[in-house]
């Protein structure tokens, strides 16, 4: 077992900002653990602009925003970085077990910062009826397939939900030559930023159906079509409003949920509804010295706010280490 002053789990914007801030606040023995081959987290697939205006006072793309922190963290030799490293166990005493190619490692830090981000909510979580053919993707998965792997998941697309990732993917699919036939939103208005409605949907004349829900997904091997129906103020179907839309692909963009199985495993008090730690103060948990920051603490709208709050997590960890010395 290796001992460390601080371990940070997650090499996205939250983990990098927390590690850099802990270093700047005096912590000199830091290990950052990242499961991917590269640092940057989900920013690497967010190739659109909209990042950095608050923090850098510049309009950046996701990869550019990440690149600034990657450069900075790589310039600090006191921060060890272990990529392709997947944490499989976390104990109450903050012992972290992780797998990396060819090895299982155990490390016990005095302080721990978890920056594990979010997962996307799924079709199952919003109860969309119908069959289970190929061609149904979460919006972020489609984003990864197009922007990282160079694959176009479909040619005729319907997007369920109007979260920002869904809106951004509407534009991306359109510019890649696919036809986005509809965005279906159960609420009266978009869940995403108005900015994205303007530049991703209205710019391309994509129809948006508000107060509509998907009543069924059809298709045997591959998605063939979906049925949508208008709903009233009591969320009841309005009879006679059902229409079918032919498509080969359905994107589900219905929000994010913090990914916190590890801290749950360690016994942190959790809010089951939001899947985030119960806490009166940002970044803190029921276990002293175990901090959570970024989208795994709560779902943020802007990465700039993730950075600001994660820097605070780094500072809190440094304060904790000074007190326990």
């Amino acid at each position, binding site marked *: 077992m290796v001992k460390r002053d601080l371990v940070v789990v997650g090499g996205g914007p939250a983990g990098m900002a927390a590690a850099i801030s802990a270093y700047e606040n005096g912590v000199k023995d830091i290990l950052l653990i990242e499961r991917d081959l590269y640092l*940057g987290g989900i920013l*690497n697939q967010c*190739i*659109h*602009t*909209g990042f950095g*205006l608050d923090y850098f006072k510049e*309009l*950046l*793309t*996701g*990869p*550019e925003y*990440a*690149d600034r922190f*990657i450069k900075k963290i790589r310039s600090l030799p006191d921060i060890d970085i272990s990529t392709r490293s997947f944490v499989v166990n976390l104990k109450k005493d903050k012992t972290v077990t992780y797998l990396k190619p060819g090895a299982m490692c155990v490390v016990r830090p005095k302080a721990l910062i978890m920056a594990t981000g979010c997962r996307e909510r799924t079709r199952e979580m919003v109860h969309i009826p119908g069959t289970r053919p190929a061609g149904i993707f979460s919006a972020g998965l489609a984003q990864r397939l*197009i*922007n*990282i*792997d*160079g694959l176009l998941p479909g040619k005729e697309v319907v997007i369920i939900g109007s979260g920002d990732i869904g809106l951004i993917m509407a534009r991306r699919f359109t*510019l*890649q*030559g696919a036809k986005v036939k509809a965005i279906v939103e159960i609420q009266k208005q978009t869940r995403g*930023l*108005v*900015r*994205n409605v*303007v*530049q991703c949907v209205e*710019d391309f004349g994509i129809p948006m159906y508000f107060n509509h829900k998907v009543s069924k997904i059809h298709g045997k091997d591959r998605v063939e079509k979906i049925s949508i129906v208008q709903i009233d103020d009591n969320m009841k179907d309005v009879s006679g409003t059902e229409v079918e839309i032919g498509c080969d692909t359905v994107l589900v963009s219905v929000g994010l949920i913090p990914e916190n199985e590890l801290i749950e495993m360690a016994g942190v008090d959790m809010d089951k509804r939001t899947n985030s730690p119960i806490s009166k103060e940002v970044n803190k948990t029921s276990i002293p010295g175990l901090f959570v920051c970024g989208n795994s603490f709560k779902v943020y*709208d*802007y990465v700039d706010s993730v950075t600001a709050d994660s820097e605070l997590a780094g500072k809190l960890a440094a304060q904790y280490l000074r007190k326990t010395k």
Partner: protein
Amino acid sequence: MIRKMICIECPKGCSLSVDIEGCKVKTVTGNKCPRGAAYAIAENEEPMRIFTATVATKGLNLKLIPVRTNKPIPKKDLFLAADETRKIRVEKPLKAGDTVTDNFLGLNVKLLATREVA
């Protein structure tokens, strides 16, 4: 004529009131920063967008590199820009901010890499 619109320069999305006479913008109110006024003028006189996409690579550590234009391009040219980026192939390592194509589409803008590729 007063046109209500939402600024898309940043995620704040300010509600703008734009006083338009003919094809020209007279005044802009509701913007929290100067970008808002510039956006309202451009959007009504010639709409512009920053273009982002990916470009294929050969023999490098990433299959694709993300790219952007260094300046906004006319909105009407977005599809042309998407077609053009599909023809480009990057074969040498680049850093974020390096130029992929000078004078992209003859628009006097640069296409820049936004991620390091080795």
